């Protein structure tokens, strides 16, 4: 971020649960909520999406998505994951 700036930068997560997705989303927006890692107290304010969200999925070649993501998509609680990540964006107006 120091090198490229915040403009046009989006973070894409692949975390498997809504809980972990929310922790990562918060870490990259308002700072590490567990206060453990280097981003404790550092508010990067980056928009965070999950790879399962339509905004990201729609931009990936369907063949690649089928090979690399579709099985996980069929296994994970997609709605809960999307809800967790999008609500972090929403709460911060990102």
């Amino acid at each position: 971020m120091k090198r490229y700036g915040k403009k046009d930068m989006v973070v894409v997560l692949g975390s498997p649960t809504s809980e972990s997705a929310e922790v990562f989303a918060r870490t990259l927006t308002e700072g590490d909520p567990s206060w453990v890692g280097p981003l404790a107290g550092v508010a990067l304010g980056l928009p965070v999406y999950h790879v399962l969200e339509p905004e990201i999925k729609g931009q990936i070649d369907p063949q690649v998505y089928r090979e690399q993501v579709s099985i996980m998509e069929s296994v994970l609680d997609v709605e809960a994951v999307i809800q967790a990540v999008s609500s972090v964006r929403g709460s911060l107006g990102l």
Partner: protein
Amino acid sequence: MELPVVRDVRFFLAHTPGLVRHGYKPTLDVARDQALWSKAQAYLRPYADAVAYAPHQVLLGNRTPDSLTDLPQPWYNHPYSNSSRRGPHGELMSEEELYGLLRASDGFDFIWLEDGFAAEAQGLLERHPLVSRKDLQQIVGVPFSRIEEKLADGTGALPLTLRDGRVIGLIRRRLQDDSSLAADILLENLAAKATATAALRAVLEGSGTNPEGVQYVIGSGEEAVGDRYNRGGGNLAKAIAEAAGCVDATGCDVKSFCCAPVHAMIIAGSLIASGVYESVAVVGGGSLAKLGMKFRGHLAKEMPILEDVLVGFAILMGRDDGRSPVLRLDSIGRHTVGVGSAQQQIMEALVSKPLDQVGLHFRDMGKYATEMHNPDITETVGTGNVPLTNYRVIAALAAQRGEIASTAEARDRFVAEHGMPGFSPTQGHVASAIPYLGHALDSLRTREYQHAMFLAKGSLFLGRMTQLSDGVSFILEANPGQA
């Protein structure tokens, strides 16, 4: 070519609430907030609770993994009334006894026990079948005043305490300024050595094998043994072989984070198949750094700190004896560099491909042993149910192949039949597939099923030398010579 078989396995668990304070996360957090530890102490379990904890009884072989399916979570609220510190697959020792074993494992006088406590530990271990006279002689004490002086002299010694906070000894560092031989590192390494040694002794005794009959010992733990010029130089395996009396053995360590034990078993099988060795032991010691890893989450939920046990294991492998399950070397699954990082591709490499190699189908595996992390520990802190996610992926792969129907019911049935609830302490390399080995050997011997698949994954990226993870798998098969 010789047929490599898995003859036996033993787990050695030590309940160590006092050592939780020296886990990496508690060390870090308590340094920032001293008051935290007095709060945490109230959530450390007594030994009897750790023994009665159903997942531990599964690891010891006193109940089956599937028996956890009907037990309501959280499991710590449902102590098992038929529990025992010993089971067909191992033993769970108290912290007082473990401190005695740590002292007996220490050939360099790093651990000092207080006089009275040393006598107590000696007394507790006196009749233990796996403790030798030489071990008992090693458990000598020093006056408490010397311990107090040493802890106060600024040379970096760490106090050793019991669950109730009572200081019963210390571990000191090497005199020179060598961070690889600091007290916390030496404690980690001794904990790994002591627990793996006890497991190796147990598997030798339990299988009626003379220690002299073992020719090679492969260490698969994660500790970095060495000095400042050789950090992680290793070969804890040989120290463990020595302590277990395997005088005709040498050995080496195999490193690959959590999947090292499965790598080590494949290597052991290959050494036996090629005729290089007749008898090989694969060992791994308990991981002290991971004690209390999620204790903040457990405190927030006002639940017991469940990451309070060290686990060592020892697996005995050898030439075909006509009875023991066979490690099929033609069934090895590999997460190669080219596979990349997507979970889907990784699981195809570890599960689908090996099944194709040997012409078997998803439902031919009686059980899949994967990362067996106990959900009581992980779900409460938001890291999810690790084994369940893995089983759902395997079911989805089976559905993709048309081997089961693509319905939620069919997938759930597959998960229930071919998976199992996680029951392993979160001890890194210990949790990956290996915890199920005792039950698999039992079921393959009684022909409850013919095959079980073991798959393990390792987070190599944590070492920051690659972005990759790793993984390997193999199929264990009932012995063809068995009636």
